[in-house]
């Protein structure tokens, strides 16, 4: 009789231990899945954040080509908008603001455009001097970019 009781107790303990093991294994599995999901999630913005890089490259190429200074310092907003739209990929929306050395805004282009809530916005601040006759005139181009959603 005593033997039977003991064997029942042992079997119960074994069962409990097995349950515990299963529970631990499941917990580890769930944690692992959550972690993998988070790791993947953090790598998503890497493609969106190259927006500032794209903006910088567009402004730099216009500047090296010799077009940017005259467009900015003569406030040729229409030509600047056209040049920048050609230099940027078609699926990117942008707006731009130009400030002088004191920080006061000289002009803005497409400033009424507002990035959609929750979208990733790239920002580029490109600084430049005037030209040979305007060595003490400085400007900062503040360019914001985001992608068309959908």
């Amino acid at each position, binding site marked *: 009789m005593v*033997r039977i009781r*003991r064997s029942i107790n*042992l079997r119960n*303990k074994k069962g409990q*231990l097995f349950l*515990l*093991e299963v529970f*631990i294994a499941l*917990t*580890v599995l769930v*944690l*692992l899945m959550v*972690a993998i999901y*988070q*790791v993947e999630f*953090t*790598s998503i*913005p*890497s493609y969106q*954040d*190259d927006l*500032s*890089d794209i903006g*910088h490259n567009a402004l*730099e190429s216009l*500047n*090296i080509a010799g077009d940017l200074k005259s467009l900015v310092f003569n406030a040729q907003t229409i030509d600047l908008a056209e040049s920048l739209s050609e230099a940027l990929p078609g699926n990117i929306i942008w707006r731009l603001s130009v400030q002088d*050395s004191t920080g006061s805004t000289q002009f803005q282009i497409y400033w009424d455009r507002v990035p959609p809530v929750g979208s990733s916005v790239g920002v*580029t*601040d*490109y*600084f*430049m*001097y005037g*030209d*040979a*006759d305007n*060595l*003490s005139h*400085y400007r*900062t181009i503040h360019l914001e970019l985001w992608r068309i959603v959908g």
Partner: protein
Amino acid sequence: MLLNIKKNLKKKNKAQIFLICTIIITIYMLSFITIVYELNVTQYSRTTELAEFQATYDNLKTETNAFMKGMLTNYSQIATVIDSNITAGTILQNWLDFAESQILAKGYFAVLEINEIVPVTLPIEVAKGNGFVSIKANIDIYLECNYLTIDTELQYDYRYTIEYTNTATATIINFYYVTIYGITYLGYADVTVNTLATTNYYNGTYVYNVPAVATDVIQGITPEQIIVSLTV
């Protein structure tokens, strides 16, 4: 009876050891997952910040290179604002101060200053004479972001020169500039003799079909509007 008790105790111990091992492995796995996650986040931030930092440095370098040529253009013209080496140094330092403030505003640490050729008296050197115009300057650059430091010096030593040689029937003119990297011939400049056009061979050589004589003025203008004059 005794054997049974011993067996039970052994099984109990085994179960406890197994449980402890499981807990240790779980902790180990969780730590591993956390490390992988943190590494990924750090790598992502590092890549993004380095790209933006590099872009800022490119911006500074491109514009400072252009600024030096701009200063030379201004200095080569009659109505120049650069009346001395000290003025030239002040104009350059103003630009560096503006660039420094822009870089600081982006959240990076930046120190940009002229490494003076002769302290106080000769910050940078501008010179012009018969057949040449030149500028010499050294700029110390120290930039720092979370993951990278740029500690370098930009050296500028441009000397634009126009020379001539007379043949029996013509004037052969060479227009070029010398830097620390060597000679660059200016194939797309505008070269005149007494305001009359020359024939351009697009390799820095220009030919005027009459030999030059005393008081003739040979003038070269680069695409950046740097003017070099030579009176024969």
